[in-house]
Structure formats: C-alpha cells, structure tokens
C-alpha cells in the first residue's frame, strides 16, 4: 500500500484545521453577536456546504479558478498561483467546505455564554479583544476542541470537492479518499480496504477522543 495518500490527507487536514481556526475564531465571534440581513446571508452561505452536494461546490471552484477564466487567469498571471489540480487548491476547497464545522460549535458556544461575563470584563476596563482572549475563549475550550476535531475529521473524509478541483495526481492531490475510489476502479479491493480501514480507524479514534475529553460537557458536534 502506498502511504503517500494517507500522509497527504493528514497534511491537508492539518493545514485546513489550522487555517480555519485562525479564520473561524474571529468570524464565529462576530457572527455570535447577531446582526442584520447581511450577517444572516453570510451565515447561510457559510452553512450551505453542509447540505450542498460536494461536486457542486467543486464544480464552481473549478470554474472560478480555472486559468482559462477571469479570476483563475488573473491569479496565474499576477501571483503565479494555480488553485486547480494543486495542493493549495485542495486547501482552499477544504477551507470553504469545512467552514461550517469550525464556525458552528464555536458560535453556538459563544452565544450560550451569559452576556454579563463580557459585561463584567468591560466594567473592569478590559477591551473586547482582552475579554475574548481571557474570558470568553477559555470558557468555550471544549467547543473549540470539538470544532477542531470535526474540521480535521471532515477534511479527511472529503471526496467530491477534492476530486473536482484536485483530480487524482499522485503526491499532489491524490488523498486517501481518492485512493480508495482509485483502487476500487482498478478492482484492487484489498488496497481499497486498507485505505478505508485506516480512514475509519483514524476518524473513529479522533471522534471518540473528543467525546472522552469533553464528556463532562459533551455536545453534539454540530451544536
């Protein structure tokens, strides 16, 4: 069995989770404060990948970033960046596809904190940023951990969107889920089984660990 797809999947999941943590914390905080129609629309857009067929998202990303089209061509000419059939393309697609898994639990946890925790901090002279770092964030640790695990595991399991924008290039875009499909296509059920068992084992251990560590305040991953 070729281990490269497994390592590529783990690398993609790690990079995606790190990026989404950096994007998701401030975004979830901003969304948690409520707002008008703009926020509702943005939140709906962020949540859509939960229910949208991955191939649809992959198709539009493929169109958007194709070097033959406006945005993709511009990125290629100006920054020499290509998001089609490349690892960075997989990262971009994964960030969009897994965004609701990072945002959902964090936003929900922030909204469930009593409003007067932040208010108490403000009356002590602390800024919004200090309050977020020292008061809010430490009190939603379990949910942040849940969000990270779910994002990581979900990225490992991506298939449709990855296949659409990344294809099946060994060492670059051939992640474990693609390797399963590729093996089955080639009637190599033994290798497909190895990849599948590994993916199942890794994701099961991660989700079980999440429930064990968060067992005191375990919540549904999508809360």
């Amino acid at each position, binding site marked *: 069995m070729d281990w490269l797809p497994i390592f590529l999947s783990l690398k993609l999941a790690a990079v995606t989770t790190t990026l989404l943590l950096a994007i998701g914390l401030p975004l979830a905080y901003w969304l948690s404060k409520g707002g008008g129609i703009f926020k509702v629309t943005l939140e709906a857009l962020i949540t859509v990948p939960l229910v949208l067929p991955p191939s649809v998202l992959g198709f539009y990303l493929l169109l958007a970033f194709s070097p033959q089209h406006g945005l993709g061509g511009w990125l290629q000419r100006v920054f020499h960046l290509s998001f089609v059939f490349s690892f960075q393309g997989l990262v971009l697609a994964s960030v969009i596809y897994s965004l609701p898994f990072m945002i959902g639990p964090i936003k929900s946890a922030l909204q469930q904190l*009593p409003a*007067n*925790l932040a*208010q*108490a*901090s*403000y*009356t*002590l*002279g*602390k*800024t919004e940023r200090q309050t977020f770092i*020292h*008061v809010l964030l*430490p*009190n939603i640790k379990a949910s942040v951990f849940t969000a990270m695990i779910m994002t990581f595991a979900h990225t490992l399991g991506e298939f449709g969107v990855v296949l659409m924008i990344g294809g099946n290039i060994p060492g670059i875009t051939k992640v474990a889920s693609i390797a399963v499909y590729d093996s089955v296509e080639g009637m190599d059920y033994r290798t497909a089984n190895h990849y599948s068992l590994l993916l199942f084992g890794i994701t099961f251990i991660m989700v079980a660990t999440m429930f064990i560590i968060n067992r005191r305040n375990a919540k549904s991953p999508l809360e």
Partner: protein
Amino acid sequence: MIDISIQKTLKAGHHQLPLDVKLQVETGSVTAIHGPSGAGKTTFLKIVAGLVTPASGHIKINNDVWFDASVGINLTPQERHVGFVFQNYALFPNMTVRQHLGYACNDTAWIDDLLQIGGLLHLQNSKPEYLSGGQQQRLAILRAMSIKPKLLLMDEPFSALDAQTKHEVIVALKRFWRQHGTTVLIVTHYKEELKDLASSELWIGG
C-alpha cells in the same frame, strides 16, 4: 455631584414599559434603589455603567459628562471605570478567586487586602464552582472594588449572605467607601438591610 436623568422604553414580553429615572446625589453618598421586579432597576444600573444605551437624557459625574444624548456623548464602559456587582455575580468560571482580582488589577498588596476583607484568603486558589453562593457573592463584590471605582453599582449584593457575614462585609465596605470617597448605588428588595448604610433612596417603578 452625580446628576442622572435617563429615559428608555423597556420591552417586557409583548408590553412596553417606560423607564424614566432622575437622580441627583452627592459624591460619596450611598443610595438604595428599590421598586417592583421588572421595573428596570438592573437596566438603570447597566445604563449608568454604559452597558445599555438610553434613548435620551444625560449622565454627569462631577464635572464629567458620561452620556448626553443631545450632543452625542456616550462613554464606553471601559472609560467610565465603574465597579459593578451583578445580581447573578457574573464570575469567570475559568479563573480562581485570586485570578479574578488579578485580572482586574496588578496591585498584589491590594488584592491581599481584599481577600482579607472578603474572608476569601483561604479560598484564593479555588474556582467559582467550588464556592458557596455567599462566597461567590463576596467575590463579585471584591472584584468590583478591586479597580477602586469612584462609582460602585451593586445589584442585590447581599442577598446570599447570612446576617453575620452581611454585617461584617457592610462594616468593611463602609470603611473602604469613606476612605476612597466612593459613591454607591445599591439595588435591593430589602430596604431594611440598608437602613444604616444608605443616605438616600430612589424608587423605580411608576
């Protein structure tokens, strides 16, 4: 001189309730605020703290204008520097007793004094979940005092204290307030508990 005149419409279910409060008290005084539940006593304190914005009116503390709707002045809670004791304490679950006070100020000697005043020295490394209701309430009071505020707002601050502890805490607070010239507004349902403490009264509730 503290000069407050604020107006705001409160939402109570499907009803609307006008809140119209006027208060003029001397600096360093203690005012007991009472009135029926849901009349807007807590909202009034939050308005003074800058946590809720009134529709109109003004809040003037000595020569400083904290809020004046007519000229668009509205200082943030951080700029107002008031101590606030929340009715349900609003303690930080992630912090120990000492960390609560250390979060608010850096003066170790002052923190030790506060822990002594509140009788929480032996619990300084405990988190709120391991404190009794009375201990939590004392911590909320100490945290509000830790920033040495000129204006202290207290929402039912003694409700969880037994008679003996309440007496001890009030004696210590009075001493502190006299030393620092603190002006205090206390919401209470029990006028009697403040009869030796409050120099003026404010009724909210029509």
